[in-house]
């Protein structure tokens, strides 16, 4: 099943419903078909986009689908050299580039470059594409490539439509529901938000680039009911809302994902916005977005609980979605571990692609190894501990940075922190803590705090204080940068 069918079904059923900004579903489909006609040509193998969020993004996504071409949005935040290296890899392609970014793109064999303004002008005179084309591949997303060259994750139409049909009811949104999309279009959540919203009948409003002040203003002006944020954005949004004197009254649901949510931040958010239902969503590019979620009721129950096992679920990513199976496996990659034991998270389901260009990495039974460490409790709640690459091996003991970071963040003098493994002659690795302090903090007090809450082998041995930690724009902590910076010390 093609992703364009999701738009076709919704547009046939309710053509006048607003889909993106002021475009209706019927207009969005007509625009996508004009985009398909303007883009399709014998020497175009895929449609590539480099630019900010806006109505052009769903037009190109669905337009590529109608034309039977993969859609490939690029990370415009990359340095010019890396961006151009990706552009070269997309040939043969049509690259639609934001006018203000066009000067950054060089000449690449097999890549036709069009400015967004020129492409939109071409769409105005193009007929609606009336052919029918199919392609297995819907979307190509380059991973962030923190370990070597970025890989192109392949998301097939079948993966994306399975995800939508299993999680969204057709046009089930209330008439006034509006989703604010602020994640970049080259992120899986930027793609899945389009498909979910169109099929569910929820209007999309785009924030072309994220700033907490613009986010708060847009929520209030557009009467936004639903939004998704990465954890690093949430704290800043709460500050901006407080400064603007807004309680974000239109907001009903706020989902978050893409990184570990510090407990003080979610606790603050739930207290400041009691009318909002919070949803923690866990997923990867390779799984077509969300595979497990912790819903609003679970948040409230955990937040109010005195039983530590229930309270702890505030750190959980909840339970697997319908159509998704999750297993926690041991270091051999085969043995399935019991409840409460930590291992690697494996996932299987029709929405799981587990595939890069030229390389399928699911096993013969369809399981995909996420490279995330995690455990599942007796009730089936999944806890994600972070990337296995980030695990610190100290004297043969595996130590997850996340647990120590959560503990540190609970200390009033800690505004933010990162725990990393540093080279150590005696233990192989030792634990380093990089702390953004709030007011005065001394390492002796912080070390005592960890020792009391966890144990001495989990107490950082090297302490560093800094003004700010390095995050990428989708909220991922750049641990490798920190390791490089502090490994000498």
């Amino acid at each position, binding site marked *: 099943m093609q992703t364009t069918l999701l738009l076709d079904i919704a547009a046939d059923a309710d053509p006048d419903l607003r889909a993106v900004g002021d475009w209706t579903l019927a207009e969005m489909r007509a625009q996508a078909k004009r985009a398909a006609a303007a883009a399709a040509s014998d020497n175009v193998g895929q449609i590539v986009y480099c630019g900010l969020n806006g109505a052009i993004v769903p037009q190109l996504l669905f337009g590529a689908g109608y034309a039977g071409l993969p859609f490939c949005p690029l990370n415009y935040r990359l340095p010019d050299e890396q961006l151009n290296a990706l552009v070269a890899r997309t040939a043969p392609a049509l690259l639609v580039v934001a006018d203000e970014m066009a000067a950054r793109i060089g000449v690449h064999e097999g890549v036709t470059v069009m400015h967004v303004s020129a492409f939109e002008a071409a769409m105005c005179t193009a007929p609606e594409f009336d052919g029918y084309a199919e392609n297995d591949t819907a979307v190509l997303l380059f991973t962030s490539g923190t370990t070597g060259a970025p890989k192109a994750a392949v998301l097939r139409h*079948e993966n994306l439509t399975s995800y939508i049909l299993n999680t969204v009811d057709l046009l*089930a949104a209330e008439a006034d529901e509006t989703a604010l999309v602020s994640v970049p279009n080259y992120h899986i959540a930027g793609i899945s938000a389009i498909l979910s919203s169109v099929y569910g009948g929820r209007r999309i409003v785009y924030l072309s680039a994220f700033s907490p002040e613009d986010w708060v203003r847009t929520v209030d002006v557009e009467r936004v009911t639903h939004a998704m944020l990465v954890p690093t954005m949430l704290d800043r949004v709460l500050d901006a809302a407080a400064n603007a004197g807004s309680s974000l009254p239109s907001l009903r649901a706020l989902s978050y994902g893409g990184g570990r949510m510090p407990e003080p931040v979610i606790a603050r958010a739930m207290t400041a916005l009691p009318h909002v239902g919070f949803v923690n969503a866990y997923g990867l590019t390779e799984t077509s977005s969300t595979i497990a979620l912790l819903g609003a009721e679970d948040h409230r129950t955990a937040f109010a609980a005195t039983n530590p096992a229930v309270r702890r679920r505030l750190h959980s990513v909840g339970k697997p979605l319908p159509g998704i199976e999750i297993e926690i496996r041991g270091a051999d990659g085969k043995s399935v571990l019991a409840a409460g034991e930590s291992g690697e998270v494996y996932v299987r389901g029709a929405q799981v692609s587990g595939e890069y260009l030229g390389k399928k990495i699911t096993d013969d039974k369809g399981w995909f190894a996420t490279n995330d460490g995690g455990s599942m409790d007796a009730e089936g709640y999944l806890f994600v501990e972070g990337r296995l690459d980030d695990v610190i091996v100290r004297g043969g003991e595996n130590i997850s940075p996340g647990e120590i970071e959560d503990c540190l963040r609970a200390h009033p003098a800690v505004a933010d922190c990162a725990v990393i493994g540093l080279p150590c002659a005696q233990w192989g690795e030792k634990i380093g803590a990089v702390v953004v302090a709030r007011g005065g903090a001394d390492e002796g007090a912080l070390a005592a705090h960890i020792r009391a809450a966890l144990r001495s082998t989990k107490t950082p041995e090297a302490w560093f204080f800094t003004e700010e930690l390095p995050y990428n724009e989708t909220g991922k902590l750049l641990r490798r940068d920190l390791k490089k910076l502090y490994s000498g010390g």
Partner: protein
Amino acid sequence: MDLKPGSRWKSAVCSAECVVVRPPKSAGVLGCGGAPVVALDGTASGGTVDPAFAGGVLIGKRYVDETSGIEVLGTKHGQGSLSFDGRALALKEAKPLPASD
């Protein structure tokens, strides 16, 4: 009748329309209102809904036949109900999920 995923069909005897989400394991006849469905761009023969298949198709609901594995999504409301080789399809109940993206 090529019931491949994504193929669109309409009832011959009522206003219902549907899409095949999952194909049957082996060939068979998808019916609505007691008559074989026709391709969405085809011509409906007309006729009346068989009272034995008059439970209705609802938009956005999914219908399944466990024996053949076929799964069908209703895309337009109609009076007739769906069947596969004469077996009535069952409504697939789904718990609403909160938006996560």
